[in-house]
C-alpha cells in the first residue's frame, strides 16, 4: 500500500493554535527530533478548515490541521515504501501516533489529547486507489486485518468516507464502546 495518510483526531475539540504549531515544528527540526529528513515548516493556517501548519519532510509530512472542521494530526506518506499492506499501514499509523504523543508532550499543547483509536485513513493516489467500490473492496480486507490486530476483532467501526467520488478513497476508524471497555 502506497502514499497513505493517517489523521488522528484531537479529542478535546480545542483549537490547535497555529503559532504554537509553528514554534513546535521548528523546534523539532532544530533539535533533530525526527528520524526523517525534515525540510521546512509551511503555514497555511489562514485557510479556514484547511491544512493548518505542515512540517514538510522528505518522505512524508506532518500537519496539525483542521480539514473538515475537525482538528487532528495528519501524517502523509509521500515517498515509496517497499513493504506489504499491513506494514505500510502500520508505518503510517505509528508515525502519526508517535507525532501525536510528541505534540501532547509539548508545553504549547498542554491539555490536548489525541486518541489513537479514532482516526482516518486516506489513500493518496487516484491511479492506484481510485475512489470506487472495487478499490474499496480491494483494500478493505488488509485494513480489517490491521485493525483486528490493533484494536481487536469487532472492537471497532470502519466506515468508508469520501462520498463525493471525486475525493480520494478514505475511511474512518472508531473504536466501539465494547472495544473501549476492554
Amino acid at each position, binding site marked *: 500500500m*502506497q*502514499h497513505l495518510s493517517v489523521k488522528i483526531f484531537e479529542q478535546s475539540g480545542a483549537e490547535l493554535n497555529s*503559532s504554537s504549531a*509553528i*514554534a513546535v515544528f*521548528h*523546534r523539532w*527540526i*532544530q533539535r533533530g527530533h525526527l528520524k526523517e*529528513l525534515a*525540510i*521546512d*515548516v*509551511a*503555514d*497555511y493556517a*489562514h*485557510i*479556514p*478548515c*484547511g*491544512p493548518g501548519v*505542515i512540517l*514538510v519532510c*522528505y518522505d512524508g*509530512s506532518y*500537519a496539525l490541521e483542521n*480539514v473538515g472542521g475537525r482538528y487532528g494530526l495528519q501524517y502523509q506518506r*509521500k*515517498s*515509496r515504501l517497499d513493504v506489504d499492506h499491513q506494514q505500510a499501514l502500520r508505518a503510517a499509523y505509528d508515525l502519526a501516533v508517535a507525532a501525536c504523543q510528541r505534540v501532547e508532550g509539548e508545553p504549547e499543547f498542554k491539555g490536548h489529547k489525541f486518541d489513537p483509536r479514532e482516526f482516518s485513513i486516506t489513500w*493518496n*493516489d*487516484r*491511479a*492506484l486507489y481510485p475512489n470506487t467500490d472495487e478499490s474499496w473492496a480491494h483494500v478493505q480486507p488488509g485494513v480489517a486485518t490491521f485493525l483486528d490486530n490493533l484494536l481487536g476483532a469487532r472492537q471497532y467501526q470502519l466506515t468508508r468516507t469520501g462520498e*463525493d467520488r*471525486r*475525493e*480520494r478513497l478514505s475511511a474512518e476508524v472508531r473504536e466501539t464502546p465494547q472495544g473501549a471497555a476492554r
Partner: protein
Amino acid sequence: MKVSNHLWKDRLNGRIAPQLGAEIDAYENEIALKKQGKLDDKVFAEARLRRGSYGQRYDNGFRHDGIERRKLGYTTDLTKGPGTVWDAPGMQRIKIPFGGLNAEQLEAIADLAEEYSVGVAHITTRQDFQLHYIHIEDTPTIMRRLAAVGITTREACGNTVRNVTGCPLAGVCRDQAFDVTPYAKALAYFLLGHPDTQDFGRKFKIAFSGCDTNPCALVHIHDFGCIARVREVDGQTKRGFEVYVGGGLGTVPYQAKLYDEFVSEEELLPLAQSMARVFARLGEKKNRNTARMKFLVAKLGMEEFKRLVNEERAMLARDSRWTAYIEHVDRGSDGPLRPAQLLQISATEPEDFRAWKASNVYRQRQFGYATVTLTLPLGDITSSQLRTVATLSRKYARETVRNTTEQNIVLRWVSEKDLPALFTELKVAHLAAPGAGTIVDPVACPGTDTCKLGISSSRGLAGELRLRLAQSATARQEEIRGLHIKVSGCFNSCGQHHIADLGFYGVSRTKDGYSAPHFQVVLGGQWSDNAGSYGLAIGAIPSKRVPEAVDRITSRFLRERQSDETFQAFIRRIGKAECKAMLDDLTVLAPPGQDPGAYTDWHDVRKYNVGDMGTGECAGEVVSRLDRELAASEREAFEAQLAEEKGDAERAASLAYQAMLRGAAALLDWRSFPVPKNADEVVAAFRKEFYDTQLFFDPFAGGKFAQYFFGAHTHKDEPHTLEVSHRLIEEAQLFIECCHSSTQRISSATLA
C-alpha cells in the same frame, strides 16, 4: 515521488493532444538522461524551467534552522540545475491563459494539489496556479494529467512568452469596448511554442484589457499590452487595440510606452510576431539584467524600434492563424446557464450576505447576471474548495470561472436571483468571505515561504495585515476600504508593490551584527488606469512595525483627506518628506536585547538571517561607520526624490548619483581599502574590489546593481529628463539595498 507515475501515460492515452504528449515524453526523457548524468546541469535547468518546473527555497540543500545553517541530508548528489538538489521540493507553475478555467480543469488541479503537493493550490498575480513541494520526477505525470484537460505548463517559466493575462471580467464588464477574451486566447496559443518566441534573452509578458480606466489587466506593466478600442473606418465600426510596449515591474519599474493608437484586429497577431522577432534578434542575451523588452525599446528609441518591427512585418509570410479566429469572436467567450432574473432587494437580507454582495458581487453588462468573486486568503485554495467551485460552476453557471490578478477566483454569469443560494453554498466551503479587492484582501508573492529569492516574509506580513485590518475600525471606513496593499518578498516585485496604494518589498537591515527583516514602504502607486503610475520608496521599516505604519498612514489619510481626494493625490499633496517624517520613528530598529521579536519574521520563530548569515561578532565600530555612511546615502536618495517631486530633474539625478557614489565609498572604507577623493577613482576602485571580484553580486541579479552605478557615473554630465532621473532614483535605492545585503553576505562568508 509517486509509485503510480508510470500508470498515467497509458491511462490518459488518447486524451492528450499528440503534440503536447510528445513534448511531455521528450521532457521525461530529459529527466532520464539527467539521472544518467548525460545532460548538463544548465541545459536541464533550462528545459525544466521552460515547462514551468521551478526551484524552491532551500533547494541548494542547506537551510538555516534558526540556530545554524545545516546541510539537508538528501541521499543523492544528483542535481537538477546548478546548485539545485534533485530531491529538493520544487514548484510547478501551471499556465492559465487569461485565467480562464472550466470545472474539469479545476478538478484536475484539485487532484494534483492533493496527490503531489500539500492539498493547496496558489493563484499568482499572473492568473497562473502554482503547486509547491513537488518532486521533479512527478512533474511529467502532473503535466500529462493537466494536458488531458487541455492545460499546458509549457513556457510557464524561462525566457518565454509567459501566461497571457486578461481582465477576469472580459465579456461581462460594463466598461469594456468589447470582449478581449478571444484575442487573448488566440495570441496565447499562436505564440506558444512558436519558433519566433524560442530565442529570447528574457521573459515576455502580455496583457489584454477591455478598457483603459479599470485596472483589471494592468496593461502598463507589460512588455506588450493591448487595450480594446473601436474605431469608425470608412463608415464601419472596426475593432482594434491601443498597443503599449516596454513596460515592466521588476527591480526598476518601467511604464509601457504607446506603440500604436490603433492596431486592427487582423494585425494584432502579426504585430506580436514581428515584435517577438525583433526582441529575439536584438534583445540582450548575455546580461539578463538588461534583457527585458523595456531595455531594448529604451536603447533603440521608439521610432527605430517601430521601423524594425515594420521591417519584420513586411517580411512575414502570411499565416492563416492570424485571422482565422476572428470570425468566431462575436460568439462571446461564454454565456449563461440559467435564466436572467433580478435579485429582489429585501429589507431582511442577512448582514453577512449584504456585506458580501457589496464587495464581491459585480453586476454584469448583461441584464440579470452577476460575477461573483471568491476571496482567497493570500491566493490559496484547498483541493476540496476547488472541487466545490467546480460543482457550483456547473450548478449556477456554464463553468465560467477565471483566476484574477488579485489572486482570487471569479464565477461569471450567475443569475442574480441565485445569489443568496450561491452565497449559502460558498459559506459552507469557507469561500464567502467579503472584502474582495479591498484593503483586507492584500496581494502577496510567495516570499520567504517558498521563493529562493525572498528576503522578508511577504505572506507572513500580508496574512498579519489581513487579520488586523479585518478588526480595524479605520479599515472599515469607505475611504480606506478601497485601498490596495501589495507585498513582495524582495525587490523583484512579483507582488506588484509598485502599483499599490500601500506597497511593501522585503529588505534586511543589521544591528550589532544581527539581521532583522524589514520592508521598504512604497506609497502612492496607482492601481487604476491599468496600473497608471508607480509609487516611490519612502524608507525601510522593521517588518514587525509595518502594521503600525499602515495604521498610521490610513488614519492620517482619513483625518486629513480633502473632499474626494484620492490616496495618490493625498500622498502627492503632503509630499514625500512628510510621509517620511510620519514614519521616521518606526524605522528605528531597537537593539536585539531590547526587542528580540524584531529579529524574527512574521509567523516564523527562527532567528532571522539572510543568506544563512551567522550571528556574529562583526566588528561593531567598523560596522557602525558603514551604517552611518549608508544611512547618509539613503538620505541623499530620498532628497533626490524630493527634488524630483519639485520637477528639478538635474538635481534629482545628481543626488541619486551622489547617493550611489557615497555607498560605494562606504563599502571601500568598510573593507579597509583606501577611499580615493576623485569620483573616477572611486568607481575604478569599486569596480576592482567589488565588481570584478563579484563580492557585490546579488545572488539573483548578479552585477546589475553595480552596473546602475557605473551607468550613472558614465552619464552624469549629460542632461537628464524627469523620466531618467526617476529611474536613477530607483536605481540608487536598489544600489544602496545591495550595499546592505552584500555587507551581510561578505560578513557571513568571512565568519564561515
